[in-house]
C-alpha cells in the first residue's frame, strides 16, 4: 500500500463519517462524556496516592494568583494554579511554584530573637513570644498613654488585602498614622499621573477583546503587577487573533523579544513619543471624538469638542515625530506607523509601566500615555485601557483610638514632591536623620528590606545602625537579611502558605474575583501570623480588636461580604478558594452612566459643570453658590455627577487627593498651581541634559524568576538566576575597551559597584542596565553564600551541597541616589548618570 499519505486519509475520513458516528459497530464500548481537568488534582509520584489539594493564594509577588497547594503527610509538596480562577485560568509562574522554597529554606527564622551586642554584630538570643510581645508592649503602651502614638512607626513593603486591612485596623485602634509603604520605589508616578485624570488608580488592559497593543516600558511577559492574568491573555490575543504588540524599551526584554517590533528608546522619552503619536493622530484626523466630551484640555471646563480638538492639536504641535526621533532614537516613520495603527484599530491597549514612569516627571509621562488612549477613545471600553476591578470585601473594624496622629516623615521633605499621594517611602530615613519632623521611637517593618531596596542603600543602613536616630527596631520576617540583621527584636513571621487572608487583586476580564489564602500546613517552628500577633499585642497594650485572629478576621469578612456570604461564606471559600458573581458583567464604560441629580441639596456648579451636594459638603446653599465647587474645601467628597452635553453622568469622580471636576483633567489646575505645565508635555531630564561624552544612563529592571527582594533565598529560583551582569551596547562597550565578560566598575555621584559586562546589541547605546534582586549580603546561603549566623539549618538542606554556582550578583542600588520625581515623589530608578570603565 504505497499511496498512503495524510491527504488520502483526510479523503477517507470525509467519506467514512457516517460509519464513525456509530452505524458501523453494533455496540459502543465506551459511555459517558469526557471531562478533562486542567489541574486541581495532584498525585504522589512515589506512592501514587492522591495528594490533599487545598486552595490558597500566592504571595511571591503582588499579582497574588489563586493557587492550589498539594500536601502529603503534613508537608507541602507543590504549588500550582487554581484552574477555577477566572483571573489566572489555572496558571502559576515560576516564582509562584517556588513558593515551596519559602517554607523550607534552611536559613528561615523560626523563633523570636532579641539582639545582644551592638547592631550589626550578629549576636542574638532566642526569647519566648511572651517576652517578645511584653517587651514591645512596654515600648508602645507609654507612647499611646502619653498621647504620642505617632512615635510608633510601621512600614511595609508588601501588604495587601487582609494583611493590610488587619494592620491598618490595629494601627487605627492604637492611634498611629505614621505608616509607611513602598509605593514610591514601585510605580507611584504612574498612579499619581492617573489619579490626576480619572481618579482611583490601577489600570487594566482588556486583552481578551483588543486589536492592537502599544507598550511603553513594561516587561509584562516576565514581571508585572498583574503578570499572570494579563500576560497569558496578551499572548493569546497575539497567537489566536494576530494582535500586534509594539514595545518601547531601552533593552530587549523577553517581552520586547516576543513583540511584533521592539523599539529601542532613550530613557525618559516615552512620554515624548506618546505625545508625538498624539501629534500624528490629531494632524491626520485619526482621533475619535467620542471621549473628548469627557476631557478637559483647556482652562475652560465648557469648551466645545471642536475647541478641545484644536487645543490638543496646539499643545502637541511641537512634538512632531522628527522632534521625538531626535531625542528618543525612535525612528519618525515608526512613530507614524504605530500611531496610525493604534488609532485605526477597532480597539487598542496602551500599556505603560516602570520603564516609562520611574523618571523625573514620570507622572507627566503617564498623563501623556492617558492622552493617547483618550483621543483614540481607548479608555474604559472593551478592548482598551480600562479601570481595574477587584474584589471589595467587607470586614470587621475595631474601635479607633481617641487620639490619632502622624509624624510627617512619609512624604519627603517640604516641597520635594507636589503630589506624594502614595508617599515618598524611600526618603523616610533621610527625614528621620534630619529630624525636623520628628523621629519615631519605635520603628517596625514587615515584608520589607529598607536597607537593601532603597537607593543609596548603604547610607540608609548607616541610619538604621544609629540608635540615637532609630532607638528601637522591630521586624516581622522570615529571613535574616540586610535589615533584619540590624533589628532589636525579630519576630518570626509565617510564610504565606501558612496563613489566612482574603485577597482582592485586579481582575483581567473586568469581573471581580474573591479569593482567599489558607494555611496549607502547620507553621514551622514558632512562626506566627502577623494578624494573630496584632490581636495578642492589642490586649497587652490595653485595647481590644474586633477580631481575635487572622482566621477570625477572614471568617467574619466572608460572612459580611455580599455574594460570598450567599455562596456559602467561609466554608465555601475554604473548599473552593475562589468565587465570582456568575451574573456579573464586565465593568466597562461606567463613566457614561447617567446619574440622579434630583436631590434637594444637589446643585450644578457653573464653572466646572459638576453636580454636587452642598449639604454633604457641610456648607449652606448660598455659600456653595458664592464660593463654587472649587472654592469649598472638601466639596469633591460631595461630587454627584458631571454635566456632559446637558446630561448628568457619572464621568470620572474626583475620589483621590486631586481636586477636580468629573472630567479627565488633561488641563490640570492642580499641576499649574504647583508650577508644573498644566497640559502633558515633555520635560527633559535635567541630569541627562548635562551629561558629558563619557557619561551613560543606568536603568534597572526585574526578571521572570525574582521579585525585588523576597525571592533570592528560594533555591529553585536562584539556581535559575544568580547573576546580573550589566547590559551594555556593543558600540558603547567597544568605545571603552570592554569585552563581554570583562570586570567593570560602575560609578555615580553617590557610589559605585563592581560587576561584569554583558555586551549585547539588545540595549541602546549609551545606557547600562542592571537588574534588581541579587547582590545580597545576607538572606541565606542560596542567596548570598552565607548562612544565617544564628543556630539553624543551612547544613540541614542536602541541596546546599548541590550549589553549583559561585556568583551571587551585584546590587546596583549603591550607585543609585535616593531621589524623587518632583511631581509624584517616585524614586527615579531610571535616571542615574554613571561612568563605566573596565576594572
Amino acid at each position, binding site marked *: *500500500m*504505497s*499511496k*498512503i*499519505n*495524510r491527504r*488520502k*486519509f*483526510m*479523503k*477517507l*475520513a*470525509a*467519506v*467514512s*463519517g*457516517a*460509519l*464513525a*458516528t*456509530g*452505524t*458501523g*459497530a*453494533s*455496540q*459502543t*464500548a*465506551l*459511555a*459517558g*462524556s*469526557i*471531562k*478533562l481537568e*486542567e489541574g486541581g488534582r495532584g498525585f504522589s509520584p512515589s506512592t501514587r496516592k492522591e495528594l490533599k489539594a487545598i486552595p490558597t493564594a500566592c504571595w511571591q509577588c503582588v499579582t497574588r494568583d489563586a493557587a492550589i497547594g498539594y500536601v502529603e503527610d503534613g508537608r507541602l509538596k507543590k504549588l500550582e494554579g487554581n484552574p477555577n480562577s477566572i483571573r489566572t*485560568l489555572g496558571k502559576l509562574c515560576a516564582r509562584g511554584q517556588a513558593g515551596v522554597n519559602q517554607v523550607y529554606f534552611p536559613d528561615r527564622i523560626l523563633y523570636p530573637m532579641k539582639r545582644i551586642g551592638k547592631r550589626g554584630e550578629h549576636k542574638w538570643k532566642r526569647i519566648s513570644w511572651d517576652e517578645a510581645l511584653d517587651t514591645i508592649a512596654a515600648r508602645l503602651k507609654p507612647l499611646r498613654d502619653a498621647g504620642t502614638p505617632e512615635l510608633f512607626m510601621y512600614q511595609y513593603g508588601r501588604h495587601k488585602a487582609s494583611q493590610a486591612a488587619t494592620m491598618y485596623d490595629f494601627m487605627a485602634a492604637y492611634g498611629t498614622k505614621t505608616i509607611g509603604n513602598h509605593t514610591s520605589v514601585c510605580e507611584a508616578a504612574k498612579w499619581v499621573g492617573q489619579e490626576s485624570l480619572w481618579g482611583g488608580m490601577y489600570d487594566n488592559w482588556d486583552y481578551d477583546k483588543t486589536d492592537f497593543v502599544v507598550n511603553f516600558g513594561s516587561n509584562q511577559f516576565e514581571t508585572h503587577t498583574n503578570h499572570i492574568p494579563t500576560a497569558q491573555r496578551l499572548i*493569546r490575543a497575539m*497567537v*489566536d*487573533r*494576530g494582535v500586534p504588540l509594539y514595545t518601547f524599551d531601552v533593552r530587549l526584554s523577553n517581552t520586547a523579544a516576543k513583540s511584533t517590533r521592539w523599539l529601542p528608546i532613550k530613557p525618559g522619552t516615552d512620554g515624548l513619543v506618546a505625545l508625538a503619536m498624539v501629534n500624528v493622530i490629531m494632524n491626520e484626523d485619526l482621533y475619535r471624538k467620542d471621549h473628548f466630551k469627557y476631557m478637559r484640555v483647556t482652562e475652560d471646563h465648557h469648551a466645545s469638542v471642536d475647541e478641545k480638538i484644536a487645543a490638543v492639536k496646539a499643545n502637541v504641535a511641537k512634538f512632531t515625530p522628527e522632534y521625538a526621533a531626535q531625542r528618543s532614537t525612535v525612528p519618525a516613520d515608526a512613530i507614524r506607523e504605530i500611531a496610525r495603527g493604534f488609532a485605526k484599530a477597532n480597539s487598542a491597549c496602551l500599556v505603560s509601566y516602570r520603564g516609562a514612569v520611574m523618571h523625573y516627571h514620570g507622572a507627566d509621562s503617564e498623563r501623556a500615555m492617558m492622552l493617547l488612549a483618550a483621543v483614540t477613545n481607548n479608555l474604559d471600553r472593551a478592548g482598551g485601557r480600562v479601570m481595574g476591578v477587584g474584589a471589595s470585601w467587607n470586614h470587621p473594624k475595631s474601635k479607633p483610638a481617641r487620639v490619632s496622629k502622624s509624624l510627617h516623615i512619609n512624604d519627603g521633605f517640604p516641597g520635594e514632591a507636589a503630589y506624594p499621594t502614595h508617599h515618598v517611602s524611600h526618603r523616610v530615613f533621610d527625614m528621620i536623620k534630619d529630624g525636623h519632623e520628628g523621629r519615631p521611637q519605635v520603628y517596625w517593618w514587615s515584608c520589607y528590606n529598607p536597607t537593601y531596596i532603597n537607593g543609596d542603600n548603604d547610607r540608609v543602613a548607616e541610619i538604621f545602625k544609629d540608635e540615637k536616630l532609630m532607638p528601637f527596631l522591630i521586624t516581622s520576617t522570615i529571613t535574616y537579611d540586610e535589615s533584619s540583621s540590624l533589628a532589636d527584636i525579630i519576630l518570626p513571621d509565617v510564610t504565606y502558605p501558612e496563613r489566612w487572608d482574603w485577597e482582592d487583586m485586579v481582575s483581567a476580564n473586568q469581573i471581580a474575583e474573591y479569593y482567599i489564602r489558607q494555611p496549607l500546613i502547620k507553621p514551622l517552628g514558632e512562626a506566627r501570623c502577623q494578624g494573630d500577633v496584632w490581636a495578642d499585642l492589642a490586649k497587652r497594650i490595653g485595647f481590644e480588636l474586633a477580631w481575635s485572629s487572622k482566621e477570625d478576621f477572614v471568617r467574619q469578612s466572608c460572612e459580611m461580604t455580599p455574594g460570598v456570604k450567599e455562596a456559602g461564606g467561609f466554608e465555601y471559600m475554604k473548599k473552593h478558594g475562589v468565587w465570582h458573581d456568575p451574573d456579573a458583567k464586565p465593568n466597562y464604560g461606567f463613566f457614561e452612566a447617567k446619574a440622579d441629580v434630583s436631590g434637594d441639596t444637589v446643585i450644578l456648579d457653573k464653572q466646572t459643570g459638576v453636580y454636587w451636594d452642598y449639604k454633604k459638603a457641610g456648607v449652606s446653599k448660598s455659600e456653595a453658590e458664592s464660593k463654587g465647587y472649587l472654592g469649598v474645601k472638601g466639596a469633591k467628597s460631595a461630587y454627584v455627577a458631571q454635566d456632559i452635553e446637558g446630561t448628568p453622568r457619572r464621568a470620572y469622580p474626583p475620589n483621590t487627593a486631586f481636586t477636580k471636576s468629573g472630567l479627565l483633567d488633561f488641563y490640570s489646575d492642580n499641576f499649574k498651581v504647583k508650577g508644573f505645565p498644566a497640559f502633558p508635555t515633555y520635560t527633559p531630564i535635567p541630569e541627562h541634559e548635562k551629561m558629558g561624552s563619557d557619561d551613560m544612563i543606568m536603568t534597572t529592571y526585574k526578571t521572570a524568576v525574582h521579585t525585588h527582594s523576597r525571592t533570592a533565598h528560594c533555591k529553585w529560583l536562584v539556581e535559575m538566576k544568580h547573576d546580573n551582569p550589566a547590559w551594555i551596547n556593543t558600540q558603547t562597550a567597544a568605545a571603552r575597551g570592554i569585552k563581554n565578560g570583562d570586570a567593570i566598575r560602575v560609578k555615580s555621584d553617590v557610589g559605585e559597584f563592581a560587576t561584569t559586562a554583558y555586551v549585547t546589541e539588545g540595549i541602546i547605546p549609551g545606557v547600562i542596565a542592571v537588574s534588581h534582586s541579587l547582590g545580597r549580603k545576607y538572606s541565606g546561603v542560596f542567596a548570598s553564600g552565607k548562612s544565617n549566623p544564628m543556630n539553624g539549618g543551612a547544613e540541614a538542606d542536602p541541596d546546599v551541597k548541590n550549589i553549583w554556582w559561585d556568583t551571587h550578583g551585584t546590587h546596583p542600588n549603591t550607585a543609585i541616589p535616593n531621589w524623587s520625581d518632583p511631581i509624584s515623589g517616585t524614586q527615579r530608578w531610571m535616571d542615574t548618570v554613571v561612568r563605566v570603565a573596565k576594572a
Partner: protein
Amino acid sequence: MGTNWKKMADNASSRSHIYGLLAAVFREEPSAALVEELRSPQMKEVFGEMDIKLGQGFHSASALLVADVLAEEFTRLFLGPGRHISAHESIFAEVDGDSGSLWGATTVDVKKFIEATGLAYDPEYTGIPDHVSVEFEFMQRMSAWEADQWRQKHRGRAEYCADVQRRFLDRHLLRWLPQFMDAVITEATVPFYRSMAELSKNFVLLERASFVEEAAA
C-alpha cells in the same frame, strides 16, 4: 495571521472519523450493512486512490455473502477456537514483567487512563478494556471532543486534549499496534483484513509523525 480554528477542528474531526472506521472494523464481524457502507462509490474511489485492495469478490458478491466470508475470517483471526491473534494490548505489551495474558497489568493501565478522562465502560460491553477496537474508539471520542473544543475556540482545552491523545498513543497504542497489525497481515487469508491492518498501522504511524512535527513546531 492567527489561529485557523476551522482547520484545527476539521483535522481533529477527520482523525475521529478514521478511528471510528477502524473501531467498527475490528470490534466485531462486519454486518451486511457495514459491508454496503464500505463498498459505496465514494469509499471505493478513496480506497482505490489509496491502493487499498479489498478483494475481487468484496465489491461484486452480495453483501450478505461478503459478510459471511468476513465473519468466518474474523473468527479465525481473532476469536478461535485454536490458534488466533488476541486483539488485546496486554497480550503484546509488557508491564512490570507481565505480558502475554488477558487482563494483565496493561489492561488495568488502559482502563485507568480512559476512565481518568471522564469516560466509562458501557455496562453492556462484554469485551476486555484493552481490546484494539476500544482503544480506537477512545481515540475517536477524544479527537471528536478536541474538534469540538477547537470549534468553540477553547485553545487550552483543545491542546490539552491533544496532549492526552499523544500520551495515549505513546504509552499504549503505539507500543503494540504495529506488531499486532503485522501479525494480522501475515495471517490473513482474506484481502479485506490484510488491507485494513495495513491501513491501521499506517494511520497510527502517521499520527505519531504528526505529533512529532507539531512538537517540533
